[in-house]
């Protein structure tokens, strides 16, 4: 059936689909303006769109439910008022009323037990006690997600002490407890069961008090988490040695610790219909393009899936062109790099559960940069980048060029080199294409095995790798020594690519080049470069062409391929449409300029 549909689609013309993937970040009036106009309106629109999405995702939840007798009586009393409201408003009101916390403590207890599936669900704790030995209450939390010490040693003794309610007077118990009793740094009131449940599941403890229609949400999160360690995939010699962890709060703290500015905004959006993974969107207010921020929020809110675990899944849901090989977001595990992205006007997404942040929009050239480039002086940074570019060239084209040269263009090889290649290939039973493919696939297997293998038996892999790719294979006459060198240099080149997703894309593309080189020599390779180049030129990352600032040409710091001195990089990248373009002032020997007048003063004082 699917084949039939595909065939039909091939022959029948269909109108181009209109969808939101066509988001383009074009030049606009608000560009360069510090205060982006219509932000509030855009926010409003997003909120509305978010509401619509939620309503859509809830589906039948909003359907009219049969009323109980008491509810029916209540609704009859309020008929006159309700007549003025439209049906949807009435429905929302009913739903809100059903979710509102009851004054009756036992009712609240039953509702929550039912919602949490207690007693079947055994890790939800309902702790009943009396505040000041008088007022009934219960606390609810998830076992293992709270800090036991703060509850056992601080909260419970305080709340259960005898004279605690003496000064309460006529004040609401909830307000009184918040203002004068509970020794917790972060508290808030909630009036809906749904919100309380979300908070409990995220590790907070919630206190319900008899006779109150509000509860107290207390920040007592204290679950087990990995401590901050050094980066595992983005190591640097000079620079910070901290990496993100799986904990969202820790990650946000790591970024905030670097960017000590009130302009840093963190918006939290839940993603995943069931697991409600929190996605933090970080950007610099007044710098990041409001349209990109809104687009990111819109795309994350439009994700309709039960489960989100980590940034990799979010990336796949929000990228512009899912069928393309190149990554369209930039993942990093380094807080310092994340901070630099934010300062450049990019929007960063940090997802709960993964030690990576994602920066959008991204360009091809940014995927080849590392934080080491900025930490070292410009000649070293430039050298490293050029080295990396050479690595990219080797990783992509070297095996393909070797195949093309041996099979189609041997005339370009010097006679001695050609003779040694021919001599080394004499005993090899495979044709060149097969020989290269066998070696490349063997190498990819070793690499994949190396990642999955338990570290205890890691040494074994090294021995196996050396056997397959090394002297043993050559001695057996299965591959030529020249090819071993080619595959090794290719591997070294691919290790030099700093971005893991980019490295994977290059590894796949390499096979296209090998096959094209085997079929049509340099002509085939040029054809694949042209087609891949065209496809890459057509990619956009959050409205920005992937190959900016080269194609199309836009204004940029001299920090694209070469890394020029840091004082020359005074502007934020033009394609990001930042509201504030200027990144720094003129820093060319500033100290000398400042000292001149001081010296004059000193001289004049001396003369006096």
């Amino acid at each position, binding site marked *: 059936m699917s084949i039939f549909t595909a065939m039909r689609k091939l022959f029948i*013309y269909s*109108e*181009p689909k209109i969808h939101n993937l066509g988001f383009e970040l074009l030049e606009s009036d608000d560009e360069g303006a510090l205060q982006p106009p219509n932000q509030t309106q855009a926010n409003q629109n997003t909120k509305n769109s978010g509401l619509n999405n939620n309503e859509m995702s809830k589906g039948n939840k909003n359907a009219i439910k049969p009323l109980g007798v008491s509810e029916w009586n209540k609704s009859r009393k309020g008929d006159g008022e309700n007549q003025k409201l439209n049906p949807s408003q009435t429905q929302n009101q009913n739903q809100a009323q059903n979710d509102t916390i009851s004054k009756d403590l036992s009712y609240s207890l039953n509702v929550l037990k039912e919602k949490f599936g207690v007693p079947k669900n055994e890790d939800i704790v309902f702790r009943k006690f009396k505040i000041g030995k008088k007022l009934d209450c219960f606390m609810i939390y998830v076992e293992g997600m709270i800090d036991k010490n703060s509850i056992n040693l601080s909260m419970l003794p305080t709340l259960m002490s005898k004279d605690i309610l003496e000064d309460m007077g006529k004040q609401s118990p909830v307000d009184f407890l918040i203002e004068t009793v509970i020794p917790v740094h972060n508290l808030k009131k909630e009036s809906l069961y749904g919100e309380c449940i979300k908070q409990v599941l995220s590790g907070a403890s919630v206190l319900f008090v008899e006779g109150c229609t509000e509860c107290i949400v207390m920040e007592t999160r204290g679950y087990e988490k990995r401590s901050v360690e050094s980066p595992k995939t983005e190591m640097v010699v000079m620079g910070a040695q901290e990496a993100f962890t799986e904990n969202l709060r820790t990650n946000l703290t790591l970024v905030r610790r670097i960017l000590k500015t009130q302009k840093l905004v963190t918006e939290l959006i839940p993603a995943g219909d069931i697991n409600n993974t929190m996605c933090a969107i970080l950007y610099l207010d007044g710098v990041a393009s409001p349209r990109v921020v809104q687009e990111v929020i819109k795309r994350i809110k439009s994700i309709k899936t039960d489960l989100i675990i980590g940034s990799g899944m979010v990336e796949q849901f929000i990228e512009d062109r899912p069928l393309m090989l190149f990554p369209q977001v930039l993942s990093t595990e380094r807080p310092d790099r994340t901070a630099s992205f934010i300062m450049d006007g990019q929007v960063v997404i940090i997802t709960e559960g993964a030690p990576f942040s994602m920066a959008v929009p991204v360009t091809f050239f940014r995927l080849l940069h590392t934080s080491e480039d900025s930490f070292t002086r410009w000649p070293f940074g430039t050298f490293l980048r050029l080295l990396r570019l050479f690595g990219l060239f080797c990783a992509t084209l070297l095996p393909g060029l070797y195949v093309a*040269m041996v099979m*189609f*263009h041997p*005339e*370009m090889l*010097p*006679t*001695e*080199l050609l003779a040694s290649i021919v001599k080394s290939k004499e005993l090899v039973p495979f044709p060149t294409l097969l020989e290269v493919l066998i070696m490349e696939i063997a190498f990819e297997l070793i690499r994949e095995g190396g990642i999955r293998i338990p570290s205890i038996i890691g040494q074994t892999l090294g021995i196996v790798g050396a056997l397959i790719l090394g002297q043993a294979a050559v001695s057996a006459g299965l591959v030529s020594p020249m090819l071993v060198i080619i595959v090794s240099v290719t591997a070294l080149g691919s290790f030099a690519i700093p971005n893991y997703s980019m490295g994977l894309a290059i590894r796949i593309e390499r096979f296209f080049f090998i096959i094209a080189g085997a079929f*049509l*020599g*340099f*002509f*085939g*390779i*040029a*054809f694949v*470069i*042209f*087609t891949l*180049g*065209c*496809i890459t*030129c*057509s990619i956009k990352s959050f409205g920005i*062409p992937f*190959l900016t600032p*080269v*194609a*199309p*040409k836009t204004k940029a710091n001299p920090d694209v391929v070469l890394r020029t001195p840091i004082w020359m990089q005074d502007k934020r990248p033009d394609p990001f449409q930042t509201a504030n373009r200027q990144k720094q002032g003129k820093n060319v020997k500033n100290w000398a300029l400042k000292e001149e007048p001081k010296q004059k003063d000193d001289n004049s004082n001396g003369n006096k």
Partner: protein
Amino acid sequence: MEINEGKFGVQEAVCLATISMSTKIFFTSPAFLTNYVGNAGWQMTIISAIISIIVFSFVYILLKRFPGKDIIQIYDISFGRLIGFIFSFVFAAAFLETAAMLLREFVDVIKVYVFRETPPDILIWTVVIAAVLSSFLGLETLARISKLTAYILLVTYFILLLLAIPQYNPTNLFPFFGYGIDKTLIHGIRRSSAYGEVMILTVFAGSLQGTGYIKKAGFISLIFSCLILALGLLAFSMAYPYETTQELIAPVYVLARGIKYGTFFQRLDPIFLFLWIFASHIAISILFYCAVSCYSKIFRLSDLRPIIGPMAVLLYTLAMLPRDFTSVIEGNVHAIREYGWVIFYVLPLITLIVAAIRKKKGGTQNA
């Protein structure tokens, strides 16, 4: 509803036009024009470029009368639907024929030097597929790939000319005026259609930010192309006596083949093959897209994708029509270079006169 072809800047436009105009240096044209003017080919191409610049100035005046409009719309407005249709159709056909002949010339030349045993169908289809894919991805993509590769192409080209310095013999430049100034001048004017591809800018007028940008892109690309072609022809004139150049099918390739610095750096022609193939791929794709775009605009189609497939078949058919390489060089390519100006230059000039007489003007300036 008009086709939304996207926007691009002056630099991209310059790259598009320059690559389309300069690619012919890699093929049979240098040898062919040596037949007419001897070793004064580089002077002849400068004359052709000057003529083209003058004509383009008039075309700019025409475009200025209709800001934001492309040449197809201008034909329609100036002549009415019927004559406008004929003019536009001829324009589209000229682009398709130019693309097809460039394709055939490229494939035949590459077959002579590199792929002697490969069936030409495979080579032609490969280029056609590349043209189809890039056209599907749109004009913006084509402009960007041109921009991206332009630097590499330019640098590689000049490296090639520099590496060939040991092959140059300045005495080959004499007699300095070749077969005579009069012949150089006449053939320079006649073969000014070598720069006819600059007219692609008039087809994409709506995609540039304004008429001023078209003027800038047109003049810069003409000057660049003139430099590239003239330097290439000068290099060939110095490298080989003109009797030899007349016999060479692809002088650039032979020049690259002659590079030799010791026993290791020799026979670098396959590396320069990349330069050749890239430039041809881009030029053919641009001309093909131009034909598709003109055709869609003539029939006021809102989407040009359905045209690409049939047009690709036409491109292949036209490329396969000439019986052999000789008929390609002496028939079709010769006709395009000698008489192409009638279509690329005369039609817009007639339009300018008619528009001035009929007092037609108007249009909207692009944002």
